[in-house]
């Protein structure tokens, strides 16, 4: 091995080497970071699941426990290694001591020791167990505002007067509740009898939380309790098998990040391949000469493999190091989003996995250029570039093995065989489509007639045999298509989930407003409040086929057999668009005597309902036959009101209805407004979602930052591909410039040809990328994620202009020195 030879080679090809190292590093940064984070989040979520559920085993019932279950709980507790706390949760009317005001509240009575895991955070910062003593209660801030009370005042609950000891800020056990009819009050179990609210005739949610000393006993004990429980009314769950929304949320987020990191890996791999090819092309004459001096193909391949390994080691170290630095800083990036007790760190497994993935990626993506070295014959001194394509069964076999390993890597990374196979299939289809599209475009290009000599030369130069145009355009177009897809999918996800939680999202809902209260209600809350009529009805049949409750129960998600809220209006809501039909109730196509109805795409999917289908509704005893006149879709989130079925006003104006209002009110103003509403309209129920809306808004903003952060790695990889592609063809350009000059062309002409050539290259790549990117993004959004698709055409224009500018700049900058050089010096260099 000749070390000096290696160092000299690296020094001589600095730019290509730097691009290669950066590509190797990039291929690993996001994968290492995401994998390491995934492991940390998973282990942390398992421990957080306990906090979310408050115990190892949870027994639920709406009735007093059945005798069998009671006996079994006592038996489980008897061995001393299991502890239990019981809670009673119900609604009741809390009053001021003077009886002036009262408020429906959500009461939770808890025994000492509650909660086993997680915490109840109080305003004073004191520990919950030291505050919730007999005779005292801890309440939500909203209760104090609504009843005009303060900490230290007395609150009447049932038959007891209890002192308000503190304000609860958050409970790890309480999942996000959208529709809650009252603020929380926590009461000590010692006061349960004094309240006199829980006895026969009360509606209570009973829960028992159990903590086990021996974790391995959790499933066994849960099974014992389950066997003795009354199945129809009692439920036994463990912290691990209870579906956690937090876990589901992180699973989805990490999956999306994994997808981006695999994209980055593939893009960086293409960058590696392309920059190494550029480096080797530059060395082609050197190989030929070394070969003519007696060096074997093996000698050269071995040395360049070593070169690749040296550069890769630098890249791996850089990639793994940066990956961990990124992961270390996740606490800033994910602030407030990651589980509280997460321990972010680097494990030996993370390092091993990183190195393994890195070696695999480098081997696969450098195989093609490296295998071409031994094909360089001494005669290449006098010829043009060598053909690097695969020849022979062994080469194809090795390449196939590499491909299989790459497939395995993708499946391993995505942790889902089916999605992994879809991904690989999609990627192969992408490359095949790109190749096909590029061939078509090049064919079209070859038939363009033009009088401009420089343009003709540019086209010929692109099409001449031996030029790498096709492979460069396929590489560039595939990469740009992937980048565009990431961008478009990301923005469509934002449109659906993030932009739909703007600051002015509704924070207060009011139900049961009566027809004759409309005017006064709007006067009270503000003239810009829209009231939505709500008419309750059941859908009984679709095109004469009855809705079967049994069939609907078998389906996942929403059911067509439930009662629906119908409404009437003559125009779309602000956040609605038509999927089919140009107006809500176009007169054509509706059968005489049948009422038109506009339906939402969600319900159309649920019941496979199509335009012109006939739906039969039962509006509280009155049958209503309607024909689908349009299908709508929504562009905003669940916080905005929406209606599955919209009718023309004239048909439902007289139907029994109440009104519903969704308003945005500043969080601090809500309790007062709720009081005003309830005092003036006691029948109206109010639901305050300000806490939930604010929390969701914050989470969504964080998500957008995280996804953009990871997507930026892909963009960087794409830029590196662009640079390496330009570098790869530099030699060919130098030669062309020289030939033009020998034939008498001026610098201006040569520059013009290069400009046209680069421009055509960029337009071809950008054009293909837009076609494929738009199609791919539509497919991902519509078929995989099931969200609305917005093509964001501006992004496509920016991509095209950006590619043209970048390719032209890089092309001209790299060719400028060539254009100015005298042909003789180049020829002397080539022949010396």
């Amino acid at each position: 091995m000749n070390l000096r030879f290696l160092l000299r080679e690296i020094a001589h090809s600095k730019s290509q080497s730097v691009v290669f190292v950066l590509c190797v590093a990039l291929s690993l940064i996001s994968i290492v970071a995401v994998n390491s984070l995934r492991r940390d989040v998973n282990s942390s979520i398992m421990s957080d699941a306990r906090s979310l559920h408050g115990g190892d085993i949870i027994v639920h019932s709406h009735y007093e426990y059945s005798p069998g279950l009671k006996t079994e709980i006592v038996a489980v507790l008897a061995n001393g290694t299991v502890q239990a706390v019981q809670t009673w949760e119900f609604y009741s009317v809390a009053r001021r001591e003077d009886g002036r005001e009262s408020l429906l509240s959500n009461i939770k009575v808890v025994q000492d020791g509650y909660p086993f895991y997680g915490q109840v955070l109080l305003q004073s910062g004191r520990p919950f167990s030291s505050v919730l003593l007999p005779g005292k209660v801890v309440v939500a801030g909203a209760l104090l505002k609504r009843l005009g009370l303060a900490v230290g005042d007395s609150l009447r609950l049932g038959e007891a007067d209890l002192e308000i000891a503190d304000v609860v800020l958050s409970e790890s056990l309480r999942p996000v509740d959208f529709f809650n009819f009252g603020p929380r009050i926590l009461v000590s179990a010692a006061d349960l009898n004094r309240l006199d609210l829980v006895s026969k005739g009360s509606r209570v949610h009973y829960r028992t939380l159990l903590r086990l000393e021996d974790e391995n006993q959790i499933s066994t004990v849960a099974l014992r309790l389950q066997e003795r429980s009354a199945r129809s009314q009692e439920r036994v769950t463990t912290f691990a098998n209870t579906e956690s929304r937090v876990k589901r949320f992180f699973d989805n987020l990490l999956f999306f990040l994994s997808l981006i990191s695999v994209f980055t890996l593939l893009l960086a791999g293409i960058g590696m391949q392309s920059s190494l090819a550029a480096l080797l092309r530059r060395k082609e004459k050197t190989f030929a000469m070394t070969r003519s001096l007696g060096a074997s193909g093996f000698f050269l391949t071995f040395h360049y493999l070593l070169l690749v390994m040296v550069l890769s080691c630098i890249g791996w170290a850089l990639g793994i190091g940066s990956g961990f630095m990124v992961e270390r800083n996740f606490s800033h990036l994910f602030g407030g989003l990651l589980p509280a007790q997460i321990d972010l760190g680097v494990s030996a497994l993370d390092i091993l996995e990183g190195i393994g993935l890195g070696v695999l990626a480098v081997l696969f993506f450098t195989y093609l250029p490296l295998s071409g070295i031994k094909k360089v014959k001494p005669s290449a001194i006098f010829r043009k570039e060598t053909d690097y394509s695969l020849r022979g069964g062994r080469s194809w076999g090795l390449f196939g093995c590499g491909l299989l390993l790459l497939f395995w890597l993708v499946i391993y990374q995505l942790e889902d065989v089916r999605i992994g196979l879809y991904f690989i299939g999609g990627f192969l289809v992408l490359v095949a489509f790109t190749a096909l599209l590029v061939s078509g475009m090049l064919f079209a290009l070859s038939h363009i007639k033009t009088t401009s000599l420089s343009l003709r030369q540019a086209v010929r130069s692109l099409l001449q045999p031996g030029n790498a145009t096709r492979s460069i355009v396929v590489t560039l177009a595939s990469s740009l298509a992937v980048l565009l897809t990431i961008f478009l999918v990301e923005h469509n996800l934002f449109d659906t989930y993030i932009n739909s939680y703007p600051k002015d999202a509704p924070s207060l809902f009011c139900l049961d407003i009566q027809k004759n209260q409309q005017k006064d209600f709007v006067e009270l809350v503000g003239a810009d409040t829209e009231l939505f009529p709500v008419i309750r009805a059941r859908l009984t049949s679709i095109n004469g086929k009855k809705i079967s409750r049994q069939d609907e129960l078998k389906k996942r998600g929403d059911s067509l057999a439930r009662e629906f809220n119908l409404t009437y209006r003559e125009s779309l809501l602000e956040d609605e668009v038509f999927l089919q039909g140009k107006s809500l109730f176009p007169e054509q196509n509706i059968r005489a005597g049948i009422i038109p109805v506009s339906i939402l795409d969600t319900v159309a999917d649920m019941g496979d309902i199509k335009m012109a289908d006939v739906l039969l509704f039962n509006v509280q005893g009155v049958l209503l036959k309607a024909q689908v006149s349009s299908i709508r879709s929504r562009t905003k989130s669940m916080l905005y009101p929406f209606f599955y079925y919209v009718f023309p006003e004239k048909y439902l104006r007289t139907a029994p209805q109440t009104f519903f209002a969704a308003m945005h009110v500043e969080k601090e103003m809500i309790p007062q407004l709720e009081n005003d509403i309830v005092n003036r309209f006691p029948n109206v129920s109010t639901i305050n979602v300000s806490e939930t809306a604010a929390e969701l808004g914050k989470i969504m903003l964080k998500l957008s930052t995280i996804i953009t952060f990871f997507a930026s790695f892909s963009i960087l990889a794409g830029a590196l591909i662009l640079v390496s592609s330009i570098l790869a063809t530099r030699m060919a350009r130098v030669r062309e410039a020289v030939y033009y000059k020998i034939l008498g062309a001026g610098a201006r002409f040569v520059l013009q040809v290069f400009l046209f050539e680069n421009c055509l290259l960029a337009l071809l790549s950008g054009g293909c990328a837009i076609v494929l990117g738009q199609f791919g993004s539509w497919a991902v959004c519509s078929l995989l994620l099931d969200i609305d698709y917005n093509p964001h055409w501006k992004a496509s224009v920016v991509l095209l202009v950006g590619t043209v500018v970048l390719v032209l700049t890089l092309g001209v900058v790299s060719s400028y020195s060539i254009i100015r050089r005298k042909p003789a010096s180049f020829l002397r260099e080539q022949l010396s």
Partner: protein
Amino acid sequence: MLKTGHRIIFIAILAIVGCSQEQQKETEAVAQEVTLVETIVAVGDSLTAGFGLDENQSYPAVLEGKLRAAGYPYQVINGGVSGETSSGTLSRMEWILTLEPDIVILEIGVNDGLRGVDPQVTEDNIRQMLRLLEESEVEVVFVGMKMVRNLGPGYVSRFNRIYPGLAEEFDVVFFPFFLEGVAMVSELNQSDGVHPNAKGYAIIVENMYSYVVEVIERSPKL
């Protein structure tokens, strides 16, 4: 009662929808088959709607079967709306009257209680409903409701007083407690502890039947 003409739902549809001549003929043909059936409208909330069950397991359907078996030619229309409060029911009384019922079974108020609505509001609403039915000369089976204990003694006693008081005020047939023998019995309710299952509804219909028959029997038309 002085009502005449068909008492079937299609008339109401025609009135609302304004059908074409052709369709009118079509619906009239169907109407002929059921012309002689008298109508009971069961008005109420999820307890009437049969929340969580097939419509044919809810009490209006079971009651209709029992009445027909006993030779009473009545159809019982399910006019229950899940989650409805007394304010909602009051606002749809006009609509209910378009069904031209002979008898209304009025079961409402439990959701008012579960949402902590002031019992005075509930009482005023039900009073207005009973007045409207009285003015329309519709016979009523008034169903009483009792509030769950956990709402607190003050609230529960005010709420529970509403029903017997109004029954006396309007001199209507009064079925004192809809969930008698069913409330809080786990075998007779769904797992939410609130809504009866099919067995529970069978008991409710048994309990209610004599009150319904009493109203039918005293109806001047039979």
